[in-house]
């Protein structure tokens, strides 16, 4: 209905392969960007920033990372929690060891460290496939959490075993620590999320992304066309872990402020991110964002309705939340196994064809 495509023709391959080839989509994207950067910072409350926007962005980055591995490269991973923990602890060690380092570098370095760890745990993917690999990645989850919990050096021998983010800033603006403004945190996460989404898009549309998808769709054919499976899978693990590490870093430093590894980065985190990816849509960058939004917003909404609205005991509400989340996931998978992104694609196709049905 909203699409007017006549006259929007492409004269170069560059135009033809741009991310939003349709003018309407392009404009919509600019509008969303403008709102996110220029409007929201003035209007959101600290509660919204802290409880909704920051977790949404952080989870979106994690979901992007996992989507690269699962959705694009077809390697099922349940170790996301463990890799996020690596990112978080790397951040902690960097922040405490190099107090002068700016937050941006800290976050990116944490990502690189996680990428390295991810690559090591990606090695078995050469021999192991499918669910065997999924289970194998659980090894990363349990081993990493155990390691970070058992070796006091990682949490600077603190008595509680917790890590706490000290105050760090960038360009004189406080980003972490108790005095950081949630809106600053939001903007910091936003810049990283947008930047990383752009990188993810670039990687997935080019040679590397195609080699991932080729491995996903038909690994034998991929190899025969010249794709080195080792390189493809390891690069997917590395890039994915980089994203997840950045997410872990932000999760700890900007969102939580303090964390304990067995609590904050348990197996449930791995599942939660996997849900985001599946509900959002495998192999879709947009889907990663939608999936994250869904998984962040739904519990907030449920809690507000059940506890705030109906006044039920919190434990009962928590149980009900489990039921609803579980049921929604099943319903989603039945209705649209390819996720919200696919729904959006179908809707878009319908709108482009409007008023015709086909």
């Amino acid at each position, binding site marked *: 209905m909203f699409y007017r495509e*006549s*006259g929007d023709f492409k*004269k*170069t391959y560059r135009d033809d392969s741009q991310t939003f080839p349709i003018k309407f989509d392009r404009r919509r994207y600019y509008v969303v960007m403008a709102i996110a950067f220029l409007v929201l910072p003035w209007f959101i409350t600290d509660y919204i920033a802290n409880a909704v926007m920051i977790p949404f962005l952080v989870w979106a980055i994690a979901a992007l990372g996992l989507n690269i591995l699962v959705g694009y490269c077809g390697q099922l991973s349940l170790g996301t929690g463990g890799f996020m923990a690596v990112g978080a602890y790397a951040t902690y060690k960097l922040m405490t060891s190099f107090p002068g380092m700016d937050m941006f570098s800290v976050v990116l370095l944490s990502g690189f460290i996680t990428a390295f760890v991810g690559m090591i745990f990606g090695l078995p993917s050469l021999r192991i496939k499918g669910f065997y690999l999924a289970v194998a990645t659980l090894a990363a989850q349990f081993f990493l959490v155990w390691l970070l919990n058992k070796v006091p050096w990682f949490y600077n021998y603190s008595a509680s075993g917790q890590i706490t983010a000290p105050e760090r800033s960038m360009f004189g603006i406080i980003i972490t620590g108790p005095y950081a403004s949630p809106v600053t945190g939001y903007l910091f996460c936003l810049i990283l999320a947008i930047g990383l989404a752009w990188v993810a898009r670039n990687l997935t549309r080019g040679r590397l992304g195609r080699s991932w998808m080729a491995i996903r769709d038909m690994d034998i054919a991929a190899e025969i066309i010249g794709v080195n499976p080792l390189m493809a899978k390891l690069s997917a693990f590395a890039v994915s872990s980089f994203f997840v590490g950045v997410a872990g870093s932000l999760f700890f430093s900007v969102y939580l402020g303090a964390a304990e590894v067995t609590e904050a980065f348990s197996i449930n985190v791995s599942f939660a991110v996997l849900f985001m990816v599946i509900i959002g849509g495998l192999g879709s960058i947009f889907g990663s964002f939608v999936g994250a939004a869904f998984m962040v917003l739904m519990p907030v909404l449920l809690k507000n309705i059940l506890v705030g609205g109906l006044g039920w005991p919190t434990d009962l509400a928590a149980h009900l939340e489990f039921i609803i989340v579980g049921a929604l996931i099943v319903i989603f998978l039945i209705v649209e196994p390819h996720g919200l992104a696919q729904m959006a694609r179908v809707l878009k196709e319908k709108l482009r064809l*409007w*008023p*015709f*049905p086909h």
Partner: protein
Amino acid sequence: MAASEITQTYPGPGLDTFPKLLLHNARMFPNKDAMREKEFGIWQSWTWEQVADEIERFSLGLQVRGIQKGDKVLIIGANRPRMYWTMVAAQVLGAIPVPTYKDSVAEEMQYVIEHSEARFVIAEDQEQVDKVLEVKDRCPMVELVIYDDPRGMKNYDTSVAVDFEVVQQQGADLQAKQSDLFKQLCSQGKGEDVSIILYTSGTTGKPKGVVLTYDNVLITAYQAALVDGLTENDEILCYLPIAWVGDHIFVAQSYCMGFCVNCPESEETVAADMREIGPTYYFAPPRVFEGLLTNVQIRMEDAAPIKRKMYSYFMGVAKRVGIDLLEGKSIGLIDRLMYAIGNFVIYGPLKDALGLGRVRLAWTAGEAIGGEIFDFYRSLGINIKQLYGQTESSVFITAQPDGEVYPETVGRPSPGVELHIADDGEVLYRSPGAFHSYYKNPQSTADTKTAEGWVHTGDAGFINGQGHLRIIDRAKDVGKFNDGKMFAPKHIENKLKFFPHIQEAVTFGDGKDHCMAFINIDLGAVGNWAERNNVAYASYQELAANPNVYEMVKNSVEQVNQSLLGDEMLSHSQISRFLILHKELDADDGELTRTKKVRRALINDRYGALIEALYNGAEQCFIETEIAFEDGRVSTISGDIKIVDVKTFSTAAKAS
């Protein structure tokens, strides 16, 4: 009627030939796209400067190959930039381009080659080259075939067939030596020189070569462009055969005004390409508009009920106020608002989906267009107008000015055109576009064009009270019933063809008591209906014989009868019996022309038995016909065809 004044003959002083206009545009709009073609996934574009360079190298290459002034160059292929460039490249050298229909079979091509004495052939691809080589033994004057697409041409004898690029390379070599040569050559031609020879498909007999001069083409094209306010920023999609005069005129307008000509990727992708380009200036014969509308209706039938309701509601709004709005008449605020909403939810997307979203001006011509079809597009806000013209007139004889658009007329005389209605109703004209002669056919020339320059159109018509020309039918087709009343077959046929499930109709009545009809159903529309109603069918023949289909067609025919009642002159032409033909009328079988006009004489001849059965009251009739396949194989189909009586209405009944 007297001609209106022409104030400016050419786009600029001395710009009286294509080559001169080419150089002019290359100077004026060096970086503006002159031509685009969808190829290799994107719109490959050439600016005016680049086009000039392409043409320069090719034309010099042709010079190297020995082309002489006055030589004919046969051009055969689809709408591709190089085909268009070839025309101008030949003109630069004083040679005469002869574009021809790419789906013509070898014999047809042989006739054109022989008749035009073409020395050179520019062919699009292997398929066309093969056709030329097939008849080459019988056409010794053909010296060289130049092909555009080198695919599969590797093993061809290069003394007979060479690559376009090879010739261009030779041209480039010459260009390097004589850099001014091209400019000199370009300035040589004059307005009164022969510009092109267009072979008309002709509803009867052999094709005739219509010789047009630069003045014919360019003055006509330029005047029409001025009237309609075309600018260098317009876009047009050239998808109709390059050998057709309309296509040539639009290209001429592009040269006059500097706007861009777009070529589709292939015949199959025209609709998609149209949507991408979104032309601002558009031409289509009524048949295309009709097909488009049928397509819209079929697709909307599959839509969800809510959408369908929305569609029919807003189409109602459009029908009520759309045309008035288009013509700038004042309408109520509520209606205006409803139309705006409709424009957002229905008309806008619909036009966009059809590729008509940006159209400022659309022409239709060639046949009468159904009033309902015409109004449909105009109510959507598409400024579709009718013009009247023919190859011999370089298209424009009359055209509808903005604000004076009526479905049944073809408008006022174009600039410089004088009209005259002969006693027998035939329309004659005298204009700057009136053709030079029929090539090598003085007899026909004399028959058609009088010494004073009046040209017989062969159409019967009259000028109505508003000063608009109204065409009734082909002069020779307009017949008389036995009681002496007028019978205008095409008029009735067009009414029939408005129904989406009727593809083609042929009516009979001249020298008879009543009007009868042959019907061709539209396989797309009726097939869709069959699918939705679980009617199984294996072939066109089977579907055509289905009783329900007959019932459907019968209803339509009765509606036509009712509407004919409204017209005083035609009320006695109501159809009393009809049949649905067992096969589709097809150009490959000679029943239609290449431009899909009905060849009446041939049909009278081939289906004589059926016509007889219509009139002798038989319930059914056996028929056997040959059909030709694309690859040349021939087979026969036969069967009994049912004939059905239809209710006719009398004026008395109407009164009651």
